């Protein structure tokens, strides 16, 4: 049950700024699949909710577009909308796989990529996938536009409850840009969950492989094994080069396991299981490219 709150639906960015300035303490509502659950559970008490879905003057918000360099994904694009946009599937298989397993039909119809990223949940599907594509986050605020790499956008939560992103007051994320992987490439998303149906991932791993100058390169990111989704460059280096041999993979597994820092006391899986399974997921991912 909800404690009553104020709801605003600004029609323009200027109106958004005006309301945001006035009420100060607010939460942005996109799809609402995280926010409303939190509010109902009393984890995110908030008086003012700003729905950005009605904003008309920022066309990027709801657009999916492929150009020469990559894919531009509006922050209000839902998972279902992406899944229906078939043109990107061959270029970003990991993204489509993550979108397919995220939530359930109803959630995917509602949930947006902006919300998934800005909520900064450690196990968020889009988190680890965006990281392997070096996604760029485009932000609009009172001072104008800025853009940062997703890795820089995320900030580990501190104990004081600081948000997990660098998004400042009166700012919104307008869209993301995912550059194509160079050369011959492939990407996969794998996860462990407790149910084959709707479930949060207990842990997930995204892996991209691309060939440059005859050399195989890897990008690896994982979720729910640290405070925020995270790239693992040391592991990437262990794998990069020529054809992989067993000892190389074993070293990479061990490194990944050692580097992961799962939160103790998770209801989904223990620290030991996550450290064990992240190394298994690496093998599953490598096997499927």
């Amino acid at each position: 049950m909800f404690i009553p709150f104020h709801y605003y639906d600004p029609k323009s960015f200027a109106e958004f700024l005006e309301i945001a300035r006035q009420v100060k303490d607010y939460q942005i509502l996109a799809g609402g699949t995280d926010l409303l659950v939190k509010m109902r559970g009393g984890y995110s008490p908030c008086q003012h909710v700003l729905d950005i879905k009605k904003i008309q003057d920022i066309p990027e918000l709801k657009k999916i577009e492929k150009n020469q360099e990559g894919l531009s994904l509006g922050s209000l694009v839902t998972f279902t909308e992406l899944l229906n946009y078939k043109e990107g599937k061959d270029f970003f298989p990991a993204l489509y796989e993550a979108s397919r397993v995220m939530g359930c039909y109803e959630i995917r119809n509602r949930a947006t990529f902006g919300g998934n990223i800005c909520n900064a949940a450690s196990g968020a599907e889009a988190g680890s996938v965006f990281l392997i594509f070096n996604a760029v986050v485009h932000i609009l605020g009172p001072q104008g536009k800025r853009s940062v790499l997703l890795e820089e956008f995320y900030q580990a939560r501190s104990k004081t409850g600081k948000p997990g992103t660098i998004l400042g007051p009166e700012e919104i994320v307008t869209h993301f840009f995912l550059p194509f992987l160079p050369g011959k490439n492939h990407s996969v998303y794998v996860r462990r969950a407790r149910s084959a149906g709707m479930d949060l991932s207990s842990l997930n791993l995204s892996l991209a492989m691309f060939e440059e100058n005859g050399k195989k390169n890897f990008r690896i990111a994982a979720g729910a094994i640290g405070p925020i989704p995270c790239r693992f460059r040391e592991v990437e280096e262990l794998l990069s080069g020529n054809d992989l041999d067993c000892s190389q993979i074993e070293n990479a597994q061990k490194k990944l396991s050692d580097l992961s820092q799962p939160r103790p006391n998770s209801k989904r899986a223990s620290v030991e299981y996550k450290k064990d399974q992240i190394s298994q997921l690496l093998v599953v991912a490598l096997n499927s490219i």
Partner: protein
Amino acid sequence: MPYVSTEYRANFFRKGNKSIMTYKSIGKNLSRVEAIAKATGSAKYTADLRFPRELFARVVRSSEPHALIKKISCEEALAIPGVRGIVTGENSHETIGVCIKDQPPLARGKVRFVGEPVAAVVAETKEIALAASLKIKVEYESLPAVFECKEAMAEDAPLIHEHIPAIPGFFPKQGTNIFQHFRIRTGDPYPDKFEQKDYSASAKIHWPHLAHCQMEPHVTIARWANDDSLEVYTSAQSPFDVRHFLCEAFHLPMRKVSVITYFLGGGFGGKSDVTIEPLTVLVAKHFPGEYVRIQLDREEMFFGTVVGRGLDGEFTVDFDKEGMIHGLKVTYLLNSGGYAGYAINIVQPGGIVTSGTYYIPYLEIDAYGVYTNKPPLGAYRAYGHPEAALLAERMIELVAERTGRSSSEIRRLNLIKPGHKNSIGQTVREDDGNILECMQFVEEDMEKYRSSHEQEIPLTRGYALANFLKAPGMPTNGFSTAIVRFNEDTTVNVMISATDMGQGLLTTITQIAAEALLMPVHKIEVTSIPDTRYTPYEWQTVASRSTWMVGNAVYKAAQDAIQKIKENAAIAMGQSAQDMVYDGKQVYYLFDKEKSIPIKNLMLGYTFPNGRTCGSPPVGYGAYMPEMEYSDEKTGQGNAASQWTYGCQGVVLDVDITSGQIFVRMVSSALDIGKVINPKMAKSQVEGAVIMGIGGAIMEKIQYDSKGKIRNPEFTDYKIPTPEDTKGIEMYTHFVETFDQKMVYGAKCLGEHPVIGIAPAILAAVKDATGLEFDALPLQAEIVRKKIQENYTQVLSHIEKKRAEYVYTVSLLRS
């Protein structure tokens, strides 16, 4: 009454153990009679009801597992506009509970689990009630708390209840946390038992608390009228039992109390007995004349009603080198939480069936109900039986392993047979059921699967089956009754007070009534909106008993109504009623078929051409209760089980040794349910139960923190199987139809049963797949993986050995 005894009728209509009768309505796949109403949303549930100027109550719950209440500060909450009042347990004296009255609807002075109701805020809207409830401050003085049975049974354990109020038939141990000790002692103790025989083996098993997860949350709306009458609308499986306990607690005459239920969105035992009704009624008492509603949130469903399972069991079995079992010693502990009102009844049936479908001459069974500081335990689909089956089937697997024989041989060797005495001293009858035929069905399915499905690496496959049996647990006077009323147009209303919670009772009763009245089903309307002032008595809709017991009651009521029609006809013809023959359309004279009257002319008595009317509108009444008695305190012997259903279930599963995940591939169920009333519905009942069983065995677990607070009271982290989890499972269902003499059409109980064999079969199949033994459920991936890692080389050699065997068996099967 012209009613032919069920025994007589049953003998008349059967040949051997099969029914030879051909039926018009029974055994047919009649579609759900309420299907359209439910599919279109017009079916009414309690939460759909709206009343003028309704008030909403929000429950403030204990944050402490065991504590004294020092102070409840309400000032701030009371100041909120729209708040009408706050009710606490102070000055209340009502105590509730089914067989042990130990629970105040609102805590008085002390709390015994996290989530116990401490106060209720009553407001004009539910939002105001919620906001105000957050402003109430409760000060506690913590007491030492215990969460596990063993701790609670320790000598220096803190006492959760100072005094245990007991009633006849129950055996609490005052001054301890044991509120019920049920024991079974049969057979002659042999010297140095459990030592001198060739072999003995022991095992233990833990099953944590589970949640029912009904789709419809509990809701109760209560109103005290100013003339001391009470109206209660509630989502209960048991309107009459609710009335019983309300009247007892609030000292009301039953004639003034109306408990009304509509459709239920699932029960699974979690809406049986009483749940939130006394709380709502207590709160409403402070607002006479006004409707007060308590509607639980999903989260509250986990700690605001009752939880299920919660077993700590261990056994020692004694057998010889052939695998013949001679003795069994069982300790069976039920973690019943802070209150025992509901749990107390689960102790006994669980104890009764821990020897499973096997004949064991010497039994020493001790089943204990134990208070702890967890939420109270209640009925949960199959009432102690899945817990007991887990022990019994583990016993078989162990004996097989130790004697080097197959578990199938050990099962057959020890199977209980007609003429044997069962664990409570009843002589097993032919019509109790044919377990052997059930086993054969399941074994065939498993062999078929084995020869037609390849295995994949890194998966390892396991096969196992489990037998089970169940009798309904109920009091010795838990009647079912029914009224059958003919209308002027010769359609019929059947009135019962058993509830339809999705199990399809209205449909099976329609079929039974149509059969009994020799009429087509479309002329029958079974109504079940029980109102304890108008509708016939029904103890509770539980224990899988309704098709059987309500069916019998409806049959008797139909015969009674037919008799009234015959009497009307007899008057019209000037003959005696016993010479009248009723055929569903007309009544004719036995010795002259030409003399007949259409029943349409007998619906309001019989009216002669001159207008004179005699006789009466035909209304029939029927009641049914099988003969039962209390168990003996020292030996547990006695006719305490009224009807048996036997069954066998087999599971084929794969374990992924790299992740510990279990994938169930095939489930075969065979149950002897007597005459099948509606095959399609019976099959779907089995499939639903199988899925629920899989959830309880590999996914579900209520997680508690160190203070006894539930960590996962929602579906984000309490996982139950979804369609995605089950769509790949091949399911086979078989019914053996041994005509049961206690039911007029030979049907037995079915509702809960197909959940029972799943957990034991999964446990044994995982053992088969990996060679590993687990002593706790659920077998979540993490638990399985951990054990595989700890015993990695052992698991690998087990798999290698199995593969060699598999290749050999398949080559045999294919040659």
